[in-house]
């Protein structure tokens, strides 16, 4: 209780960030369903506590690498709705000037090294960022987000090996949402996920990814230790994606039952759980929370409207940024 009081601001911020992610995704989903958004997108809804719990333990100097399911990481690492919706719609004011889109969205100025659309593709980048920190004497930490599906990629084992050999300040954050695209994780992963890291002598933890405080507390400890050169670390965050693999993955009962989805949404939703905690601890009233939700919803609506009206990049940008000066 006492601890909750001292952390009021942090807690409200974590709640707010989780709701921002959910709201962003709801709006993104609507944009897709109404055929206003080009391409397709992978929803982060349901996994909010993972991105927020981790990113709230990081500074702007700390880096993350994100995934194709990256909107949540992007919001959690400090991005704004306006530039995000612009990116989603391919507009010039997007974080990547409309050249990245949903699968490469990132606010680079807050240490997000980009969302990677190759499953497991960013593990080298994250580990390399940590190598750079070590070689150049910096104390920043890099968190590598990836899903359970990415544990099947060989690159992970190469870089975990090197990270462990050289004690690199990197935290491998495996968001285990139970499904590797359209397949149950148990059908693609033999043995235990954490044992993979432990085989390299990497300290590995499993944590309830629907409990933002648990995620945050663990991350804070690991980040502090990584800064001191005790890395790397591995976290398996047990979580759930509410949507299909992507927005068009509607008919998914052949791999996942509606009852299971309902159970996670009704009983393990990270936002509902944390909201109840905030109210019961007296950190916020229902009214305050409703007001916060409404304000976020309004921000999102305005950002969507802005993005819909925003201009596309001019034609002369098509071959701009192929090479840096």
């Amino acid at each position, binding site marked *: 209780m006492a601890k909750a009081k001292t952390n009021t601001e942090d807690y409200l911020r974590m709640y707010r960030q989780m709701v921002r992610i959910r709201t962003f995704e709801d709006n993104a989903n609507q944009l897709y369903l109404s055929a206003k958004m080009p391409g397709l997108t992978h929803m982060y809804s349901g996994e909010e506590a993972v991105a927020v719990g981790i990113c709230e333990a990081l500074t702007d100097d700390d880096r993350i690498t994100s995934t194709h399911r990256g909107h949540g990481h992007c919001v959690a690492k400090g991005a704004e709705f306006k530039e995000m919706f612009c990116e989603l719609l391919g507009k010039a004011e997007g974080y990547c000037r409309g050249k*990245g889109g949903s699968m490469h969205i990132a606010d680079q100025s807050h240490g997000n090294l980009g969302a990677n659309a190759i499953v497991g593709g960013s593990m080298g980048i994250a580990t390399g960022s940590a190598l750079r920190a070590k070689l150049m004497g910096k104390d920043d930490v890099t968190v590598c987000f990836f899903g359970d599906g990415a544990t099947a990629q060989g690159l992970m084992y190469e870089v975990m090996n090197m990270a462990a050999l050289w004690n690199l300040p990197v935290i491998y954050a495996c968001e285990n949402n139970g499904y590797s695209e359209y397949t149950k994780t148990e059908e693609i992963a033999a043995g235990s996920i954490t044992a993979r890291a432990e085989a390299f002598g990497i300290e590995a933890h499993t944590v309830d990814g629907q409990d933002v405080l648990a995620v945050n507390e663990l991350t804070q400890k690991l980040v502090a230790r990584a800064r001191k050169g005790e890395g790397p670390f591995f976290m398996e965050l047990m979580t759930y994606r509410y949507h299909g693999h992507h927005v068009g993955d509607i008919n998914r009962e052949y791999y996942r039952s509606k009852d299971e989805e309902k159970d996670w949404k009704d009983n393990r939703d990270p936002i509902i759980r944390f909201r109840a905690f905030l109210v019961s601890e007296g950190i916020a009233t229902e009214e305050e929370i409703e007001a916060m939700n409404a304000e976020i919803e309004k921000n999102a609506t305005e950002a969507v409207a802005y993005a819909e009206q925003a201009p596309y990049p001019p034609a002369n940008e098509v071959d701009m940024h192929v*090479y840096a000066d």
Partner: protein
Amino acid sequence: MREITLSQAVNEALAEEMRRDPSVFILGEDVAEAGTPFKVLSGLVEEFGTDRVVDTPISEPGFVGMAVGAAMTGARPVVDLMFGDFIYLVMDQLCNQAAKQHYMSGGKLTVPMVLRTNLGATRRSAAQHSQSLQALVAHIPGLKVALPSSAYEAKGLMKTAIRDNNPVVIFEDKLMYQDKAPVPEEEYLIPFGEANVKREGRDITLIATSSMVQVAEKAAEMLASEGIDAEVIDPRTIVPLDEATLLDSVKKTSRAIVIDEGHQSYGVTAEIASRLNEKAFYHLDAPVLRMGAMDVPVPFSPALEDLTVPTPEAVVENARKLCAGEMIHAA
């Protein structure tokens, strides 16, 4: 001017840049005490320590990916890929990650890294250690590709590559590591996209890359004795490509042969020949010829391997035919 080997030239370039810029470091298999199998990096670990000359496990995708991440966050890694053939192993990291970060981020992220590797057959190394894969990476927008043809180029291009803010792949010919050439003591850089006219001539232009420059120069000498005056040009970088110098030369000579050790089909020679056709068509008095390696996996047996790469004699024969107005490859 003093003469040093290509291997020493690369070593000097790396040492000078590492002294100049503390963010430059070397990453790769057996780069430290071993100094690579070709001993190109010998001595560097003694000066810069294992923090900046980092031996890695045999994990090419892993350490190339890490170089990308280090480059994106402020370092200037030089990755040593022991054989050019291993590029296949690192295609995702090089082509999906390194090459695209700047574009995908709308210009906000940069990847200033160098991938040092090699090319070239006739070392009796068989099909998986003899390939010249520069066309593969030159095809990918976002990568720059340098092909030094001598110790002088190797040093100047390496220093430019390290200072470039883009991923650069440098292919050294592994047969040339012990070849000596005059290299100034004082510092110099060779800008990318500036071809070098190695020899001036009126009758035919021989455009050659890497060790094929030597082949072209020998051919030019032989042609001179027959009264054919060949011009030899080394593009030095194929991305970016100094098109203007090539076009000027071909407009002067009206004939060209493009020579590169990569497989001939869909290769560097095809690309350059095609550009000459498109942009100097009305100046051509003969078809532009491509001369690349045969379209076969590189065989082990010396008797076979030597047949697969362009030779001065073959260049001479083709040049002679073009200058005589004989029809080559006519249907």
